[in-house]
């Protein structure tokens, strides 16, 4: 799967990391990426509100989804998907790209912009997001000079991210 770009948003919607891996999208300035991040954060929140209004008897709401997810973990003893984005905006499909949003329990959002019309895209993106989350935990969270919710400027993280997406 060709991944054009990845973004990482903190829990307040601020852009803390942006990496254009492969050219193929429009050239955006740093300020444009900040606006894009804020827009996606807002749309994600509006999506959560909207999905609860569409909700009827057959569809569980966010709390029930979380309770079911926790029950599965307790009964099986195995960790499920790390993606806690269950009610908000998850995926955008357009003619030229697809955009996927992964949200952690702590509210961190990973965004991936890929080529469109890819088969089995959900499983591939879930795996890529999981590896990206592991890299974030290893090279950003364990960096003593990193302040939480500030932009990521780790060259180790940059290198490993490029390496991860070069082989995918």
């Amino acid at each position, binding site marked *: 799967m060709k991944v054009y770009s990845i973004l990482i948003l903190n829990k307040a919607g601020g852009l803390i990391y942006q990496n254009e891996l492969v050219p*193929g*999208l*429009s*050239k*955006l300035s740093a300020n*444009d990426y900040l606006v*894009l991040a804020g*827009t*996606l954060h*807002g*749309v994600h929140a*509006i*999506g*959560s*509100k*909207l*999905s609860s*209004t*569409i909700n*009827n*008897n*057959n*569809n569980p709401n*966010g709390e029930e989804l979380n309770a079911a997810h926790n029950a599965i973990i307790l009964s099986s003893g195995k960790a499920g998907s790390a993606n806690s984005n*269950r*009610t*908000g*905006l*998850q*995926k*955008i*499909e*357009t*003619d*030229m*790209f697809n*955009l996927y949003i992964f949200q952690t329990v702590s509210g961190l959002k990973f965004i991936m*912009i890929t080529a469109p019309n890819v088969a089995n895209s959900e499983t591939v993106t879930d795996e890529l997001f999981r590896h990206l989350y592991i890299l974030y935990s290893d090279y950003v969270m364990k960096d003593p000079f990193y302040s939480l919710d500030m932009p990521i400027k780790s060259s180790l993280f940059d290198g490993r991210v490029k390496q991860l997406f070069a082989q995918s």
Partner: protein
Amino acid sequence: MTIYSFFIFDRHCNCIYNREYTHTASSNDTLSGQINKSNDSNSSKLLFGILYSLKTISNKLANDEETEMNELKSFTIGSFKVHFWESLSRFKFVIVTNGEVSQLSDVLFELYSNYFIKYVVKNGLMPVEFTAEGEYSKINNGKFIEETDNYLQSLSIFRS
């Protein structure tokens, strides 16, 4: 696979048609749901806001070298999938389904070309521009409602 609702927005950011389908175990033959009840409610306005924002994102991220516009096709919110199609006259057609339904561009185009144009655009009693309030702010054409309901019901993804 289920179809939950069907929206039409005009270029003035108003919801001119809203059809919600209620799927219960008892009503297998009769069609239940609401017509034009949620045009002014929060769900329609929230949906339009999301569509507007995502269309902006789609066009901004599209490659500058391409001459054609980058069209938003669908997006997934929670367990729902929203399918989107827009005419050049900027009427927005939206169908909300569950997450397993694939592309519905053909269905949305069919709704526009064979039902909306036939029963709304070519209807001399309909206004050219929908008003924000009053009698002409919504599609109340019984034939359009009946025909679109029959068409959507005939799809295999309507309820299964």
